[in-house]
Structure formats: structure tokens, C-alpha cells
């Protein structure tokens, strides 16, 4: 039955739900290698650029990239502590977002930082990537922790 929010002007409530069958296409190995405890991403040998997130096709030369393993170690490029978010992540607040510079990777990678000492976080701090034991097959299966 339609729920009415207001009479004048007439405002009704209309819910909407949907399920997608979403393909990760050729970036699938990133996710499947996580279950083996490895961080895999792609590199264009022609342009000498390693991308994370992986791209099957190099945006600079439009050639195909190759899979390479990376260590998952690096440092913080920039960070923010979130006290508010979109609806989906309100339950997680507060949490920290970071861009990290990783060994062997030319892009900076957006992930969460999990630390017991958020007040000690600073740009340049050493981190390593961690993988969730219960994979949800989302980019949030990976996060950064301080590497001390």
C-alpha cells in the first residue's frame, strides 16, 4: 500500500530495489589472487607503467597489459578521517581513507586505513595492504595497516 508523507502538496513514498549481475571482466585475477594471499595487478611493458587498480588495456598506448605481482607495501600519500558518509557506510563511521603509494606501482591506490592509533597517522607513514579472510569480492576486501 502506498505510504503518504504529506497531503498538500501530495507526497508519496516509492521504494525501489534492484540486483545487478556485475562482471569484473579481465580484472578478475586481482580478486581471485587475493584468495591465494597474493596482490596481482597489471603493467604496460611498452609505457613502463604499473596500474593499481588493474586495467586490461593501457590508457597511454591502448596496448594490452600483463599481470605482475606486487608486495603490497608502501606509504601514505594523503589521508582523511570520515565522520559522515553516504548511506551505505554510515554504520562504519568514523573510518579513515588513504591514498597509498605502493612499491612497484605508479598510481596511488584508494583504500581504508585500519589502525588502533588514528591520531598518529601522517603523510609518508609506512603501510602494508591486508586481505579480508571473508572475501566479499569487492575492493573493500583489501585495506592498509601501519607497517611497523
Amino acid at each position, binding site marked *: 500500500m502506498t505510504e503518504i508523507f504529506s497531503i498538500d502538496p501530495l507526497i508519496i513514498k516509492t521504494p525501489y530495489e534492484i540486483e545487478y549481475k556485475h562482471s569484473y571482466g579481465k580484472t578478475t585475477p586481482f580478486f581471485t589472487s587475493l584468495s591465494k594471499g597474493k596482490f596481482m595487478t597489471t603493467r604496460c611493458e611498452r609505457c613502463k607503467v604499473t596500474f593499481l587498480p588493474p586495467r586490461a588495456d593501457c590508457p597511454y598506448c591502448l596496448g594490452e597489459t600483463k599481470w605482475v605481482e606486487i608486495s603490497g607495501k608502501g606509504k601514505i600519500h594523503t589521508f582523511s578521517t570520515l565522520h559522515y558518509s553516504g548511506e551505505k557506510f554510515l554504520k562504519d563511521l568514523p573510518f579513515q581513507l588513504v591514498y597509498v603509494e605502493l612499491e612497484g606501482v605508479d598510481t596511488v591506490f584508494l583504500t581504508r586505513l585500519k589502525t588502533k592509533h588514528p591520531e598518529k597517522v601522517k603523510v609518508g607513514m609506512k603501510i602494508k595492504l591486508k586481505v579480508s579472510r571473508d572475501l566479499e569480492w569487492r575492493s*573493500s576486501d583489501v585495506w592498509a595497516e601501519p607497517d611497523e
Partner: protein
Amino acid sequence: MVAGGLTYFSKARKDKTQEELAAEAARMALFENDINLGKDDIDGTIVSYFSDHFENQLLFGSIIQDYLGFNPKPSVRIEGGGATGGLAIRDGYAHVASGLLDVAMVIGFEKMSEVNTAKGNEFIALASDTDWDFPIGGFYSGYYALMAKRHMEEFGTTEEQMAMVAVKNRNNAQHNRFAQTNPKMNPFAMKDAGPITVDDVLKSPYVATPLKRLDICLMSDGAAVAILASEEVAKKITDTPIWIEGTGAGTDFMRAGDRPRTVGGVPLLPHEKKEWYKKLEYPGVHSFRAGRESARQAYKQANITNPLKQLDVIELHDAYTSSEIQTYEDLGLTQYGKGGKLVEEGVTAIDGDLPVNPSGGLIGAMHAVGATGVMQAVEMFWQLQGVAGKFHGSDKTQVKGAERGLIHSHAGTGTYVTATIMAR
């Protein structure tokens, strides 16, 4: 450009549907500007709105076209995130310059209030990469906070300087009757808004460090309409047409983290020197390469070699106080790294050398996404005609003697940016 119209902007315009808001702005454009032009003289429309999600209605452009009574004339929908309105103005210009339309109406609108604020933020975050960036905690204020923090780290920009941007724009809005933060003049305004101080900004709660509640733009319902005409028609229908002298558009990687960090890689504007940026990694996540590219093209077309001197007024996309500072640098108003100083020195204040966002911008006036870039064109049009005071209901917003201005429209973390030069 020959006419412009706006609605009152509000957190929630429950009194009207989207198409009724568009009609409100269209009516002002057609009947409250000093032009000899009728509704039937419009040859076609460019419809500018961002999200199909806010109303769960696809093909809204068709509803607008029929509601405003323009069938069977041509119409096209333009969408490009936060830059939707700027891209629509560019498209209107292209339609007229190519001769496809003699008179084009650009209709921008958004109604963001029909979902709750957190869901609205989630919809906006769906305009980030949903495979990689959104699942991490997708929230645009978080993305811009990361960029702002890097700008502070790289250049020493401070939270006080960011607060000064908020105060400037919010307080400018107190003289603009359309502005959402102006409860004295706008019957649909936020009742608890009004003027603010640097202290208010610094004491407002953190949303995503270093950004606080008052560093962040509004979410709005409302519409804006601009009418563009060919040179020949414009000269016939008005004594005070405003000319589009140049326009540019730039783009960058959807995920800001994928952008290059090329040492000394700044594309230079005519007045800049290579040695300024020898050591700077560019664009990284601290600067908007798309903004620089849009300015470079627009300046070239409009023969602008010293923007700070040659421009009299700017309306730019202050989604965040940090992004206004970053944009000063992209537009070459000052060197990269010195944007914070520009606001500190009062250069961009309403009585400064180059006022920025006299309307109040996205922080003080509105951000009804698809309407925003069109609102900037309308504001610039009134500024250059010298009638801003008449439309705003206060002469305090009019930049005296303004002859040439720039409007700047910007989408998600700098993915699409447009810059357009308008002149008397």
C-alpha cells in the same frame, strides 16, 4: 547570451515538481530580461540535469520539452556530473555557433531532496568508480578531503584559508535573494542560515578531515535557464547582449589516484614560467589538470594572456572551500601553491581586484547539480549587463564596471571541467 532566469534555491522545494521549477526559471528568462523575444522564437533546447536516480525517471528531458511547450522542436540532454551545466552552456554555444539553432534555451535543474541526505550523497558517490572507489566508503567529501590534505602537505595551505573562502561565499550570498543560505530574502531558504565568521567555520564539525561542515557546498532543488542567440539575432533583440569570447573543456582520469605525477608536468599558461614548477609533481591528487586544460583553451580563444588583470569577475565551482583554492591555481590567477594566499589577501573578495563567486557560489547560493553551471552563466550575464543588483534584490553583489568574466564548472574530483569567457 541574451537572457537568464533562476528559481529560488532551497534544500527542498516541495511546492513544485522539477518541470514546474524549470518553468519558473524559463518564465524569468523570457519575460523579466530586457529583450524583444517571444517563446516561439526559441529554436530548440539543451536540457541539463545530472542524475536519473534522484527522481527515478529516465528521459526527463522529454518531460521538460513538452511541459515548456517546445514540441516538436529539437532538444538534447547533456550530462557530465557536476560539470553538467557548464557542458550544457558549451553545447548551447556550439549549437548556435554551428548554425544548427539561431536561438537556443539551456535549461538546467535538479531536485535532490526526494531522497534523504545520506542517500543523496550515495547517489553522488555513484559518480565515482563503483568497482574500486565507491566500495571503500564512497563519499565525495572524503575524496575531496584527501585532495585537500595533499594540497596542504604539498603547499602549506591552511584550514583558516579554506574557512576564509566559506565566509566570503556565504556572506556574499546574504545579498542574493535566490540563495539557499539567505533566510532574509529567500522564502525557501534554510531558516538557521545567514552570515558566518571564520570562527564559525573552524568550529563546525568535521565531515572528512580537514573539511568541516561549513567548508562543503549545499545540496539544492532549483532551476536555471540561459538563452543564447546568434550574433545577428542577438543584435536585433537586445541592446546589451553578452558575448561568449572563448570556451574550453578538460578531462582527467575518473579515479584521481590514476592521474600522473609528472615532475615539472604543468601545462603552462601564457604568463607562466617553466622554472616555477620545475620540481612539482603534476597533477597528482592536489591539482585539477582538467581545470587547467579548460582554462588554457578558453584563454587562447579569448586572447587572455594575464587572467588576473583581464578578468573582472569569476563564478567558479566551489564544491569545497579547498577546491576554490585549487581552482584559483588551475585558472592561473596565481601560481600553483599560492591559492590560499589569494583569498587571504582579499583579492577574490567582493571588493577585491578579482571578485570570485559574488552570487555566493555552491557554498552560499546553491548546488542543484544540473542547474549549477547554468546558474553561473546567468549570474555572469547579469553581472556584465550591470543588472545583478536588480535581480538579486541588493546592489551589494554587483561588481562595478565588470566587462569580462569567467565561469567554471567542475565534475567529480576534476574529471570534467569547463571554462567559458563572457564579455560585454
